C-alpha cells in the first residue's frame, strides 16, 4: 500500500468505524494525543478531547449517524475526504430539540496523517443545511 493509500485508510477507518459506528476504542487508536483541530465547532475544544466530545454529541443527536464517503484524495500526509452524513434527529443538536426528521449534509475535510495517526484537521460541514432541514431557521 502506498503512503497515500495508507493515509486515506486511516481517515476512512475513523469515518466508518468511529463516526458511523461509535467505536471509540478505534478513536483512541487513530487520533494523536497532540491532535489539533484548526476549525473547531463553536463551543468545542480544538484538541483530541474536543473531537471525542463532538463525535459523542453527534451520535447522541443522531443515533443512526453514518457517513457516505464519495471520494478521497491525498497529497503527501494530507487527506481530503468528501462525504455526506446521514442521521435521524433524536437528541438535542445545536440547541434544537429532537424532531425525528431524517437529515443529511455534505462535509469536506482535510486531515493530516503522520505515522499512522491523525494529527490535524480542517473542515467545513454544511450545518446551515441541517438547520434548514430541522426547520430551525426562521425567516
Amino acid at each position, binding site marked *: 500500500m502506498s503512503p*497515500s493509500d495508507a493515509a486515506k485508510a486511516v481517515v476512512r477507518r475513523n469515518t466508518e468505524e468511529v463516526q458511523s459506528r461509535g467505536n471509540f476504542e478505534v478513536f483512541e487508536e487513530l487520533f494523536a494525543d497532540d491532535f489539533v483541530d484548526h*476549525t473547531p465547532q*463553536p463551543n468545542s475544544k480544538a484538541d483530541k478531547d474536543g473531537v471525542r466530545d463532538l463525535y459523542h454529541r453527534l451520535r447522541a443527536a443522531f443515533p443512526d449517524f453514518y457517513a457516505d464517503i464519495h*471520494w478521497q*484524495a*491525498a*497529497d503527501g500526509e*494530507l487527506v*481530503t475526504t*468528501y462525504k455526506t452524513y446521514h442521521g435521524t434527529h433524536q437528541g438535542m443538536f445545536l440547541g434544537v430539540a429532537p424532531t425525528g426528521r431524517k437529515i443529511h449534509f*455534505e*462535509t*469536506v*475535510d*482535510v486531515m493530516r496523517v503522520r505515522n499512522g495517526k491523525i494529527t490535524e484537521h*480542517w*473542515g*467545513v*460541514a*454544511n*450545518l*446551515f*443545511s441541517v*438547520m*434548514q432541514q430541522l426547520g430551525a431557521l426562521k*425567516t
Partner: protein
Amino acid sequence: MKIYLFTLLCFVAYLPANAKDKSTDKKENMNNYKKDVTLWYEAFTKKDAALLDKILHETWVDIPSPPGTAPGPAGVKPLFARLTTTFPDLKLTIEDILQDGNKVVVRARMAGTQKEAFMDFPSKNRRIDIQVVDIHEFKDGKIVRTWHTEDWMSGLRQLGVFEK
C-alpha cells in the same frame, strides 16, 4: 429561494487565458493545476467576471447547485454578480492547495462586509470571515467539476442573522 442563494455559493478554478496548444503533454498541464486554481480566487477578489468565461470547461458542473443551473461559465455568473455586489470588499484568501492527480483541493477564507440584503436578510454592515474548502476536478486542462463547502452557519452568526 433562500436555499438557492446559499447553494449558489461556489468556488471554481481558473485556467490560463492563453491555453497551451494541444501538443503540450498532459503531465505539464497537471503540473500547472495548483497554480491555475489560484487565479480563480483572484478573479473573485479583483471582481474580474470576464475571467470566468476563460477558465471553466463548457460542461462545468457545480456541486451542490440549484436545479436549473446552466452548465459551464454561464452558470456561475449570477453568483459572481450577487456576491460581489452584496459584499463589495469581498476577498478570498488561499490558505493551502493540495493536489491528487486531477483533483485540486483549496482551503481558503472568504471575507467581506455585507452592504445589501442577502437571503432577504437586511445589511447590518457586518463583516463575514468564514472557512471554505473547494475541490476542483480537471479534465482536458480545464475545470469540469467543483465541489464546494462554506461555513455559512458561522457566517450568519457574524452577520447578525440570529440576533433578536
